[in-house]
């Protein structure tokens, strides 16, 4: 796909994905040209440790999503614990506290599916380390609507199960280690 058509990068991670993020995020260029959305499985808490940690390692803006907030280029938007996040046609975030999906709220599938509907071929999704099957169905919809799906290679992931599920279901269009993911994302231009 054409990297100058990318409009959004969405990253999903679960167990063991923080290590990957701490390698990938500091290596991304500071003037990252499109918005980034990060959905992580984490314990329900209102603390700001994750946001502060990722901000300290990133050269772009990192903030936890507030409802109705617009997606902004050069910003890493973190999905808050205990809510699903959806993206509206006008490219703002909506929060939703409905049933868990894949035993998870937030669910990676919900974010990927919602983003796919709005951004279609302009979406790049990355699925990192985890011990859950979340993300696979989201990947399916991203592919069907013309977006790009990248699974962290299971052998390079802390916990290979989650990206492995997407690969097994044939919904991962590309399989990359962290260095390749960094190079791919840094090649995105607008």
């Amino acid at each position: 796909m054409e990297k100058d058509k990318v409009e959004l990068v969405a990253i999903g991670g679960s167990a063991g994905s923080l290590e990957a993020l701490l390698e990938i995020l500091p290596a991304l260029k500071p003037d990252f040209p499109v918005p980034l959305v990060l959905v992580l499985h984490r314990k329900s808490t209102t603390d700001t440790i994750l946001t502060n940690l990722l901000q300290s390692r990133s050269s772009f803006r990192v903030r936890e999503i507030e409802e109705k907030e617009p997606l902004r280029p050069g910003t890493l938007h973190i999905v808050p614990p205990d809510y699903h996040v959806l993206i509206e046609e006008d490219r703002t975030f909506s929060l939703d506290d409905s049933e868990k999906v894949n035993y998870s709220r937030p669910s990676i599938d919900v974010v990927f599916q919602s983003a796919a509907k709005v951004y279609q071929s302009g979406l790049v999704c990355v699925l990192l380390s985890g011990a859950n099957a979340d993300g696979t169905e989201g990947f399916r919809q991203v592919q069907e609507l013309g977006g790009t799906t990248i699974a962290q290679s299971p052998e390079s992931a802390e916990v290979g199960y989650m990206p492995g599920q997407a690969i097994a279901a044939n919904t991962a269009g590309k399989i990359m280690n962290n260095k390749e993911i960094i190079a791919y994302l840094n090649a995105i231009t607008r």
Partner: protein
Amino acid sequence: MERSISNEELELLLNDVLEVHGYDFTDYSRASIHRRVNRLLMLDSFPSFAELRFRVRNDAAYLKRFVEEITVNVTEMFRDPDAYRAIKELVFPQLFSKPFIRVWHAGCSTGEEVYSMAILLHEAGLLHKSLIYATDINPEVLERARAGIFPLSQMKQYSENYIAAGGTEDFSSYYTARYDKVIFNENLRKRMVFATHNLVSDSSFNEFQLILCRNVMIYFDKNLQNNVLHLFDASLEKLGYLALGAKETIKFSGIIPKYKQLEKHKIWRKIK
């Protein structure tokens, strides 16, 4: 691929529900309600949008199910324990001198938060002079709230939340377990009034010292949020409190100049 309806079909359906039944969902945030309708299409195995639309237009019993399923009725006791602790420590001390305390839980769903509030009021010695008005758009969920019967399997989590919220008693003393359910004590329920109320179309019905509306307005668009906040403002006495969900704010509404936020909590006091 999941079965789904188009944006245009969603608008047709929402217009039907308004015109035929008088329920107005047209100012709800689209992404969430769209997902809920697609979910219902699958759950109830409609072969196509046309069948769903016909059923919603013509079957009043099904309409009830439709409204209950497209609104989100997921709730828990003492969700966000910090918020309850803040109410206990910052709001209750201002209520001690009141002869009578009226609390409104708007959009209370199946009532878990209503029982949570009753327990906190009880422990503060305020319950006997309080009345909690618990309202929701769905009559069915209010029936469940009124019954006060919840799954036993949830009690471990609720007990942890209760302790984190600053509860001082043995949580299990508030209910009686039978098989896989628990029923909460009658003395809590005695201080609750349940009624249907639609935040979109119904008006203010009383004046309150405390209004709680948590994780309800996240489903509304900005315009409707603003209208509902004005409804709350009109229903709150001076120096009363408004408590919202962890990710909600009154910052972008017209009522903000009359309110002061309590530290970083999602609680605002009406100061004008």
